[in-house]
């Protein structure tokens, strides 16, 4: 067995042990939101005895602020509260990308089915009626905290890959800000095309991660101040496959993988890595391809100067005329307000 294999297995074992240890003990930070002080204290007593750390808030506004400050693993929230009630607070939490994955249990003395339906509509993960059964509360809290820790593990994996992508950008000073710009262009473009929220989110992530595979490309090729030789170009093309493999095990990136792998494909099959043709190229990858070319043209690179926006548009139209890109996509991109891209 090689040293690399031994190290790899040791690392896998350590990761599994750490993960198992975290999940075996499903205690976490719980935010209890209730305008009745005594109700909040009752829930706090039950949860603290089960090993959780509890913070309290007394209305929706205070809860929203507290979520950002304390980053709880779970929120237990009353429905009827002054100023901002539980339904609206839950809706806001679930619409915010930063807080949407924090589970919310609505705890209420309301028993009508309509209230439960509203709770589900605003994205609540569970519903508990008062008077609370302590055993039931503890079981549900443990279950959702365990789920949150799984999500955190996935989120951590995604963060590592994102950090890797930004590290690659930092290796090459001429591409500084490229990832941020691409994410912004792609999101604006996707919105203008009426894509779904999930597709827009994939484009935002794809903007940052599309070139993550460049981590495996030697500096001599990646940073070469001049045109690449055919051999070097083949090496450079590997970044799409390396990036695809890096994102492979991260479930939250499954919609991003096609962007990472296929953003250099061309409609006529002359692109890489799979020489896909026409509609076989995923739409999100085609979108990323358009904005990637636009940004590459309008910024300075080791091998070329920046061109004007108008000149970049001409180049994109030329690529569409050559059969590399969908002309309707290029038209739609050019029709976007240029001020959004400057």
């Amino acid at each position: 067995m090689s040293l690399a294999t031994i190290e790899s297995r040791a690392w896998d074992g350590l990761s599994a042990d750490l993960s198992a240890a975290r999940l075996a003990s499903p205690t976490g930070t719980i935010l209890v939101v209730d305008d009745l002080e005594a109700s909040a204290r009752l829930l706090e007593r039950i949860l603290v005895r089960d090993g959780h750390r509890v913070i309290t808030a007394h209305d929706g506004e205070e809860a929203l602020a507290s979520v950002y400050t304390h980053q709880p693993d779970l929120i237990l929230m009353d429905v009827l509260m002054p100023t901002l009630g539980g339904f609206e607070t839950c809706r806001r939490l679930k619409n915010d990308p930063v807080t949407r994955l924090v589970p919310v249990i609505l705890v209420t003395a309301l028993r009508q089915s309509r209230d439960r339906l509203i709770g589900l509509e605003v994205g609540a993960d569970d519903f508990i009626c008062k008077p609370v059964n302590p055993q039931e509360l503890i079981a549900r809290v443990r279950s959702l905290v365990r789920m949150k820790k799984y999500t955190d593990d996935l989120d951590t994996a995604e963060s590592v890959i994102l950090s890797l992508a930004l590290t690659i950008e930092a290796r090459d000073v001429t591409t500084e800000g490229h990832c941020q710009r691409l994410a912004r262009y792609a999101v604006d473009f996707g919105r203008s095309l009426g894509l779904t929220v999930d597709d827009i989110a994939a484009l935002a992530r794809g903007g940052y991660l599309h070139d993550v595979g460049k981590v495996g490309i030697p500096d001599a090729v990646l940073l070469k101040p001049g045109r690449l030789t055919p051999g070097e170009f083949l090496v450079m093309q590997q970044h799409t496959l390396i990036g695809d493999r890096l994102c492979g095990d991260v479930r939250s990136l499954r919609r991003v993988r096609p962007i990472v792998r296929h953003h250099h494909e061309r409609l006529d099959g002359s692109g890489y890595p799979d020489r896909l043709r026409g509609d076989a190229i995923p739409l999100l990858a085609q979108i990323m391809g358009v904005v990637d070319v636009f940004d590459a043209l309008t910024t300075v690179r080791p091998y070329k100067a920046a061109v004007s926006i108008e000149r970049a548009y001409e180049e994109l139209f030329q690529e569409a005329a050559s059969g590399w890109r969908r002309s309707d996509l290029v038209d739609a991109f050019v029709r976007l307000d240029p001020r959004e891209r400057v």
Partner: protein
Amino acid sequence: MPDISPSFDRWLHDVKNQLSIILGFSEIMLQETESGDLRRPDLQEINTAAGRALEAIARAPRPEGETSR
């Protein structure tokens, strides 16, 4: 977001909230009190009464003109 009206439902909600607090804390105190503790029967009375009160308001007739939400 729809809010509950100041009606029978609201009253029911508020009473249940208070009874839930009595019931919950008396349960915790019972769990934390030794079996021979002289306060235990009194705590049990509080706990049982709160439970019965909750059952009673669940059976309370809805006032005329009030519709169930």
